[in-house]
């Protein structure tokens, strides 16, 4: 069968159109460690990651979940001890030093720094990797955990920042 150039080009074009966009929806995650466990916030709620050795100033008369305040280019931000809010352990001293980090979280109602033990990665992962939270989740974590995923052989717990802030507000009032 003799093909013409036009028919060949038309065939190519139809094949190209048949290519289905199989790009999976991706989600950006800020992954960090708190004690022995790994957590992540969606990237869109983390404005900035600050080094953990930023000076944090103690503010008297605050609940124990507050580490203090930091000066971020002339703006004062509170620093919340995330480990205490999530009741992960009875850590007495907040992590600090070059491996620790402060995440600047921007929720719908409030913003604050969040102390974490170590920033692990900021990555884009396919949304399909996120599994629903298991029923076995501890009671106090149920309302702020939105999913679980495995990343580089680590079990990551995905957190909702607004719910974390809500738990913090409730816990301190």
């Amino acid at each position: 069968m003799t093909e013409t150039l036009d028919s060949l080009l038309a065939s190519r074009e139809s094949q190209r159109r048949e290519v289905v966009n199989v790009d999976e929806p991706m989600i950006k995650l800020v992954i960090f460690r708190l004690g022995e466990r790994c957590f992540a916030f969606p990237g869109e709620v983390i404005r900035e990651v600050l080094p953990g050795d930023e000076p944090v100033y103690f503010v008297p008369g605050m609940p124990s979940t507050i580490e203090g305040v930091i000066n971020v280019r002339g703006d004062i931000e509170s620093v919340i001890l995330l480990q205490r809010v999530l009741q992960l352990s009875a850590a007495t001293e907040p992590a600090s030093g070059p491996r620790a980090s402060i995440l600047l979280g921007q929720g719908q109602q409030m913003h604050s720094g969040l102390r974490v033990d170590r920033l692990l990665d900021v990555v884009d992962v396919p949304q399909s990797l996120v599994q629903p939270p298991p029923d076995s989740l501890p009671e106090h974590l149920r309302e702020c955990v939105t999913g679980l995923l495995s990343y580089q052989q680590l079990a990551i717990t995905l957190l909702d920042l607004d719910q974390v802030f809500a738990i913090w507000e409730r816990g301190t009032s």
Partner: protein
Amino acid sequence: MALPLVIFTHGPSWFGLEARHIAGRGHLSAEDQDVIAFSRLFCMHSEPSGRLEYLRLRTSTAEWRLGIQGKIELIELNADVIFPLPDPLYKQRRFLPLKALGFHHQQQHQQQLIALLDAEQLTQLALDQRQISR
């Protein structure tokens, strides 16, 4: 623009009051009774007895003496190192007179946080606890 402040220590922390509310300062004698220790207002307990100084506070509702067991200094803070309390801290503060934060340069370029107090609220707290009368 600078704000004159009387600052004082309580434990490891520094607190500050606008100097315009401070009508005087003096040393206390053992016989002085009409003095409210800052510790009583801040953490609801009395400090161990020791040498105390007082600040005489004059506000719109009362004039009274605040007992201080620590250092007292008169300083000025520039407006650019005074900040309102961040919203989360304002909502969750345990000590209602806490109103703002200041940063005071001390030796060796170290900054010290000053917890700035509302003198009217501090007076109200003393009134609420029936520690002073109007």
